[in-house]
């Protein structure tokens, strides 16, 4: 097989990965596909599900086989002109995890060292920032695009691309960078560590990201409950201004950049970008319709980009160490390192910075002492904060923690806030409490969310005791489908997904409760 041709199936994380975590009996498929053989011959006839997936796979493979044949005829002609064979591609990394301390970006994550200017400069902050700023906006954005950094706030949108949406030439309005430090997603507690232990990393990131976007000022919106974190950040900001690192002629580069700190007062919805802008402007934090997008009309009507704290805070290190270094971690399109917050029923819950695409099992066992009661005691994991559907144990066996792998199993990486639940958990109670959370945090603007979240919660409360009919499970699924996608902002989707995940993976549990409740009622009535 010519070296420069790789059929789709050969890529270790292409079509094969799609089915690999789902059905173990199709493991054999992996070897056969890499040689481009006809898939349908080796598929074990084990149920409709595997056949369906194999059918999709053979369709995918079929296209590539046709393409491979086309390419092979082309290569036949070029081979006659005696070209030297290209060097073999470097071996692709297959194991992720085991990040070394010298590759970690947040070196004061646990607050052991001095968080303020002196300690920060010893850890490498504000080093040659002037040179990076002088290189200019286009260079910064190109490097960010090359690094493959994806937004760390939950959506995972490529950051370089997002920063490039800001206007290159101002039409009279100033541009703003808004840093979203309203960390209210259940399970997530990574930004507070950055703000209280490494605030200068964030401030330097604001300057660099602001220069990349041609912004004149940055507004950091911190959630109201993070009072001590805000005091640390305010002290760091004063130090930076006093040392001439921010403000007029920041770092001596000739670029004027201001950083303002604003805080909220307890609303999860203010983490949504347009709601954050509304809250910054002094109104209720009710999201706006998009379009117009914040890059066209954002804060006070000016072009704005809203980014997460972690995305902004890693940018100086990426620019200093090089985008190739950053993209050497994680799989393709899921590059870099990530702060994971593992909570729930593990032996040692903690926040840890690890490589993207680390397997969930390794993450839990290496850093958290494993699941409470052993791996077999695991019931379900919510991999990315409460807004993503949960994953039952059989998927958690070998799923990788990155955006694409989790999307392939119908979940999502979100903010990488891993909530682990063991067999002692009442999973319906846990999801019902999440439904209550969304009902409480709904801003009330649009009907599907305002009414739907309350309705979801009331049904979930009844499902806890099984006080429902079997048809109501499908009715609940229908309600979530009516909310999802029909709201002004993504809180509706976030409210719908956990319930969908519960129904998808724990329907037998719900049905069992309903049946038992019905039996109890019958016995009571008969008594």
């Amino acid at each position, binding site marked *: 097989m010519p070296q420069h041709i790789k059929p789709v199936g050969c890529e270790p994380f292409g079509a094969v990965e799609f089915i690999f975590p789902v059905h173990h009996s199709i493991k054999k498929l992996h070897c056969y596909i890499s040689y481009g053989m006809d898939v349908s011959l080796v598929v074990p006839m084990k149920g409709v599900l595997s056949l369906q997936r194999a059918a999709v796979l053979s369709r995918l493979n079929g296209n590539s086989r046709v393409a491979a044949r086309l390419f092979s005829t082309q290569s036949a002609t070029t081979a006659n002109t005696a070209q030297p064979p290209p060097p073999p591609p470097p071996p692709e990394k297959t194991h992720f995890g085991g990040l070394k*301390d*010298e590759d*970690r970006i947040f070196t004061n*994550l*646990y607050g052991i060292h001095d968080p303020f200017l002196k300690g920060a400069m010893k*850890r*490498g902050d504000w080093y*040659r920032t002037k*040179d*990076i700023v002088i290189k200019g906006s286009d260079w910064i954005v190109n490097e960010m695009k090359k690094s493959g950094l994806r937004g760390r706030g939950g959506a995972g949108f490529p950051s370089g691309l997002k920063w490039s949406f800001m206007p290159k030439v101002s039409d009279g309005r100033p541009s703003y960078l808004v840093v979203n430090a309203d960390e209210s*997603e*259940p*399970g*997530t*507690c990574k*930004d*507070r*560590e950055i703000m209280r232990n490494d605030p200068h990393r964030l401030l330097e990131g604001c300057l660099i990201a602001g220069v990349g976007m041609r912004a004149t000022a940055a507004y950091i919106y911190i*959630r*109201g*409950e*993070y*009072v*001590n974190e805000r005091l640390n950040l305010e002290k760091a900001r004063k130090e930076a201004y006093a040392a001439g690192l921010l403000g007029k002629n920041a770092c001596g580069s000739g670029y004027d950049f201001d950083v303002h700190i604003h805080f*909220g*007062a*307890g609303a999860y919805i203010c983490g949504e970008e347009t709601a954050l802008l509304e*809250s*910054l*402007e*002094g*109104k*209720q*934090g009710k999201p706006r319709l998009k379009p117009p997008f914040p890059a066209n009309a954002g804060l006070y009507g000016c072009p704005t980009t809203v980014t997460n704290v972690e995305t902004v805070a890693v940018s100086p290190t990426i620019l*200093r*160490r*090089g985008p190739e270094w950053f993209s050497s971690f994680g799989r393709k399109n899921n590059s870099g390192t990530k702060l994971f*917050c*593992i*909570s*729930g*029923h593990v*032996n*040692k*819950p*903690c926040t*840890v910075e690890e490589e993207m695409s680390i397997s969930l099992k390794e993450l839990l066992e*290496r*850093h*958290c002492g494993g699941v409470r009661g052993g791996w077999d005691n695991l019931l379900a994991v919510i991999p990315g904060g409460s807004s993503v559907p949960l994953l039952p144990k059989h998927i958690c066996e070998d799923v990788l923690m990155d955006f694409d792998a989790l999307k392939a199993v119908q979940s999502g990486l979100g903010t990488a*806030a891993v909530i682990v639940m063991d067999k002692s*958990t009442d999973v319906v*109670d846990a999801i019902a*409490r*999440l439904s209550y*959370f969304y009902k*409480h*945090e709904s*801003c009330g603007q649009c009907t599907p969310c305002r009414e739907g979240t309350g309705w979801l919660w009331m049904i979930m409360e009844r499902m806890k005791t099984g006080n429902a009919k079997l048809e109501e499970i499908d009715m609940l699924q229908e309600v979530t489908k009516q909310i999802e996608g029909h709201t002004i902002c993504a809180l509706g989707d976030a409210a719908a997904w956990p319930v969908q995940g519960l129904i998808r993976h724990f329907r037998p549990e719900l049905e069992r409760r309903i049946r038992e409740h019905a039996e109890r009622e019958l016995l009571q*009535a008969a008594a």
Partner: protein
Amino acid sequence: MLGRLASRRLTEIRQVFRQSPQATRSLSAALNYHLDSPDNNPDLPWEFSDANKPKTGKGDIVSLSVKLQAVCSHSSAGSCTTAAWGWLPVSAMNAVAKVIEVAPIRVYEVATFYSMFNRAKVGKYHLLVCGTTPCMIRGSRDIEDALLKHLGVKRNEVTKDGLFSVGEMECMGCCVNAPMITVADYSNGSEGYTYNYYEDVTPKRVVEIVEALRRGEKPPRGTQNPQRINCGPEGGNTTLLGEPKPPPCRDLDAC
């Protein structure tokens, strides 16, 4: 038999409807309308202290929530007749509206939207327990029960000596240190306002913290588990062992 089932179901439904107004009050959501009462009505005067009087000009609603938070932590000063520790009486909201010259509804909007604004009396130490799922599965319900039992109050009720009240909050953002409580300290006015997290608490430890606060001490904030360093794993960190070195910087002039 079916008749009995039907009548039982009807009584259950009637009970649910009867219970719902009280049910909303005992949940973490506050009422979003105002009811006049002897200590909370628009006719009571309100005086700002120097620390929390809004200082900006006409129509400036920017940072309105910041201004309201400063007012919220005001304690009675001198001849002021409404002493408000940690809560916003409607007369305070009207006074803020007058100073910054906006319609009162703009202030009411913001005050009812955010959950940190208390519009009913709270204790000098307002204890907030996070109840969302990551904390719940680590036992936050036990923490709340322990607090309510020890203080002898129901949720959102103030103790007789006016020192403590217990409320439930949604996710407070320290889920790896679950379960946790927050103590909003309104006993020293706006200047002495603190909002500290006490993390990794147990029912026993949380009672100890309450008693320490009652004696006027300041228990150390943060994780109450001595085996942990902030958000690190219990029993010692697995990463970032050793002195942090500044990372290498590539040759910026070359690229």
